[in-house]
């Protein structure tokens, strides 16, 4: 099963010069686990901020999220995969790099993302179909 078939298409974006607090609002309001940070306007240069980053890099250190810019805590670059990649390959990549999501990209454009939950769901579907699952 190709990842394009079961990716999450709704991606939230935010500019790098915004504060961590702005990102937190998006995470809470839109019930997301990550936000893509646009490092440079108009360029295909992205980072990512997750709830984990907010907690460990800002809140746990007692810093004020309104005072910290996203460019200071964003991780990058995004790990991008082609839409024709099989889910089995993604599982290995995520396990090897200890990451919770990969992005589906084509010609520099982000089409969607595949999270651990998407991966789990896809594997269960393949099992139900009787397809060989690694």
């Amino acid at each position, binding site marked *: 099963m190709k990842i394009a078939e079961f990716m*999450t*298409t709704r991606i939230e974006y935010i500019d790098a010069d915004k504060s961590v607090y702005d990102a937190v609002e998006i995470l809470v309001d839109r019930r997301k686990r990550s936000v893509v940070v646009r490092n440079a306007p108009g360029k295909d240069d992205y980072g990512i901020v997750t709830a984990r980053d907010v907690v460990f890099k800002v809140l746990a250190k007692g810093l004020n999220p309104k005072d910290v810019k996203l460019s200071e805590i964003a991780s990058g670059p995004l790990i991008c995969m082609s839409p024709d990649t099989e889910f089995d390959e993604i599982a290995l990549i995520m396990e090897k790099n200890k990451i919770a999501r990969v992005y589906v990209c084509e010609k520099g454009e982000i089409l969607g993302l595949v999270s651990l939950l998407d991966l789990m*769901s896809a594997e*269960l579907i393949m*099992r*139900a*179909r009787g397809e060989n699952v690694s």
Partner: protein
Amino acid sequence: MFLEKLFSHGKKEREVIHDISRHIELLSAACKTFRHGLEKHDRNLMQEVATLERYGDAVRREVISHIYEGAFLPYLRTDLCGFVEIVDQVFEMLKDIATLFLRSPLPEKIERQCCMVALLNQRVSEMLLLTFKAMSNGEDIREKTLAVRIYEKKVDDIKYDLLESLQDVPVDNFWKGRMLADFVSGLTRISDIIEDATDALQIINVMTR
């Protein structure tokens, strides 16, 4: 009746199972045709969906008449007919949205999401067929019903995004807007109805154990 049952070796029941499988196969074909029609903007394929719906209707009538001619024990008949009627609702919905598509083109802004939902609808209808075949063979259908729920949940996620995107789509008049809203609503409702069909299968499965 007694002698008929003794010597028929379940022929009527096998016919019903075969017909229901055919019904669901037609549904999968209709979902696939719809999806390709949507992706390629092919009006002919969209019109083909209505033809497949008519074939589906014919098969449904055959199934119900075979059931009430004496296939299966009476306690199962109502639920089997109920299942077939739910599948028919999906056909109806598909035909309606195919007609809406022919009347009103899809805005580019929501095209990709709609195609994604159409693909998921095709996949969930294929899963319904696998679930029915497994149930009639007496296999465990738990994994398959979970797969259907996963697909339905995925469509729900895309539905909320679609509704948000729709708010930014300009419409010329009320009726065009209404048709677009009905199209999106119908497209995202198909997986819900198929989930209901799977629940009906689960009930039949429990009753026969």
